[in-house]
């Protein structure tokens, strides 16, 4: 034991904002791995279809959207077959909503562990967001199949997808971290989030193309990070939508600011969060 690094933890009231504890969170990466694994493995137990549900959910939604908005309402889809058009948006959108929902309620639903064992609480919302990514990759394989079916060859533009994927997760985490501690105090948050996400879906070009939005409003409209993600996905996959531009950079800036402030708020409230249960 060296004198320079005392082998003890000091426990005292923490004041102010403190650090993000990234190093400590990293030390608990095994726990992160196990929580993701529990989330995935535990979810589909004792179900006849098991993990098929991961693929089934967005697929069925896509079919319904195609019938209602594509066939009945005849919404334009920038010339792309409507099923492909909506599915390419549904994937990041589902990832976003699931991650946001889960991370916002992560503290409440994991109180059993949180009130009994210490670990950096940040692990919990991160693990739920990552579990969403696994679902995403499963569904993505279907998407590739659909592209080939409709005669779209995946090209080099696919390489930009991780950036948009990161933007979707970062946005979900940013909002989720802000809401997670609030959700401990007010159980209404979980309901509110679900409802607001439904509203948000119509503010995001999931069932219609962004090109339908009047030109004058387009700039403001594209400040919605998820609008960026969805349009970016379409650009990379089927060639419509919008290429990354300056607004994308600005949106990243906003999201990162939200993410860091959210993480700090989370760190601040995690110290005494169990007292509020």
């Amino acid at each position: 034991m060296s004198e320079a690094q005392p082998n003890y933890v000091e426990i005292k009231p923490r004041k102010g904002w403190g650090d993000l504890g990234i190093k400590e969170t990293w030390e608990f990466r095994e726990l992160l791995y196990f929580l993701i694994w529990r989330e995935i493995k535990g979810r589909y137990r004792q179900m006849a279809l098991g993990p098929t549900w991961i693929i089934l959910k967005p697929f069925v939604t896509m079919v319904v959207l195609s019938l209602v908005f594509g066939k009945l309402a005849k919404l334009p889809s920038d010339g792309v077959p409507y099923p492909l058009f909506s599915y390419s948006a549904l994937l990041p959108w589902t990832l976003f909503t699931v991650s946001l929902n889960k991370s916002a309620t992560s503290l409440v639903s994991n109180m059993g562990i949180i009130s009994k064992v210490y670990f950096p609480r940040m692990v919990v919302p991160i693990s739920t967001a990552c579990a969403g990514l696994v679902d995403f990759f499963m569904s993505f394989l279907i998407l590739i199949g659909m592209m080939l079916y409709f005669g779209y060859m995946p090209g080099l533009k696919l390489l930009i997808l991780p950036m948009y994927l990161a933007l979707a997760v970062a946005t979900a985490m940013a909002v989720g971290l802000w809401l997670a501690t609030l959700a401990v105090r007010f159980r209404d948050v979980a309901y509110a989030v679900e409802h607001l996400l439904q509203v948000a879906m119509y503010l995001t070009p999931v069932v219609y193309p962004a090109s339908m939005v009047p030109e004058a409003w387009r700039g403001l409209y594209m400040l919605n990070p998820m609008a960026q993600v969805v349009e970016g996905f379409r650009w990379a996959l089927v060639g419509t939508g919008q290429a990354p531009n300056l607004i994308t950079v600005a949106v990243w800036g906003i999201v990162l600011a939200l993410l860091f402030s959210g993480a700090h708020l989370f760190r601040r409230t995690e110290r005494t969060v169990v007292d509020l249960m």
Partner: protein
Amino acid sequence: MNDNAIEVNGLGKRYRLGAAVTKPNGRLQAVGEALKAPFRYLIRNATKASEEETLWALRNVSVSVKRGEVVGIIGRNGAGKTTFLKILSRITDPTEGMARVYGRVGTLLAVGTGFHPELSGRDNVFLNGAIMGMKREEIRTRFDEIVAFAEVAKFIDTPVKYYSSGMYVRLAFAVAAHLEPEVLLVDEVLAVGDLAFQRKCLGKMNSVSDEGRTVLLVSHNMEAILGLCPRTVWIDQGGVAGDGPSREVVQQYTKESMERAAQPNLKDKTRQGEGVIEFTGFHLRDSQGRPIPHVLCGDPVDLVIDYRSISGQDLVNVTAWIWLLDPLRKPLTCLWSMLTNQDFQRLPSEGRLVCRLPQVNLAPGSYMVDLAARVNMGKSEKLMEAAKLEVLPGDFFGTGRPITQTGQFLCNHSWSLED
């Protein structure tokens, strides 16, 4: 380099209690209250907590524990023991003071933390181990040992939701017992599991301390404390009330418990209630209905409980029970209306329950009485150490020979020579 494992200095934890909310009077007021609720919350957070609103669960606690020491922590419910462990294990921050813990800390506040019912025993061992801070490699090398210790080898690939509660607890404890922390904080987990397994756990914990590990053990089981811990800290009302050799501290504590139990005023006792029924009085009565301070061994006695319903309404489907315990809080017997098929279908909002013992067969001595009731299979009320039951030597066998000392209880019996 000092040889302390834990140093605690002036530790305190303050909780803010919810301000009493007045019950709404009529529908209009109820709506008004609901509308005001969010604002009330904001105002409450913006203002400083008033004196009545705060509760110091722990205050000015200073203790140091040497490496390799096994220390028991005792105290009544709500005295601050669990809060103390929660602060030491960093689950919640203290309000003031500081503590240092040297080395890797293992926390056992509950067994089976994070168990997922749908996952197999095998999966849960890894999951639970990871939650408690073990590395995957460590769990893998100890896996067989853990399974053998838990005695669940046959069911290791079955989802734990199909486990009996005993198996569940055994598996959970086995993981915990194989943690190798330098400091182990344990809260009352020995209260679960069957007797043989409890003994095995105690043995395992003993070997833990032999290997130079430091253990803090919170328990209500004085036998466990006396058997395992050379030193005991007694926490009362958030402060250290006693600290020293276990035998002395436990003695002080039991003496105080008996004195407290002897106090007739039930208002000051430790309640664990969900606010549906309240015990307002307890006394002993002889067969003529006269209140008596103590009973004679062999005499009949009525244990009389006064209660009231908190809502003021009648209570339906009430089951009531009385625990008789020895001074170390070891349960001796339970007098339970369900066992005698005498649960109460309906009780008036206020009244008196009587439990009659036709012949007291406890050996002469002092006993403690816990009262409890459950209403309609749901909410319950417990009053710990509600009273002291003093049994004096009496003529149990009707032979004119008062019993003085005969172990813990008496049995009717007869002797003869077989011809």
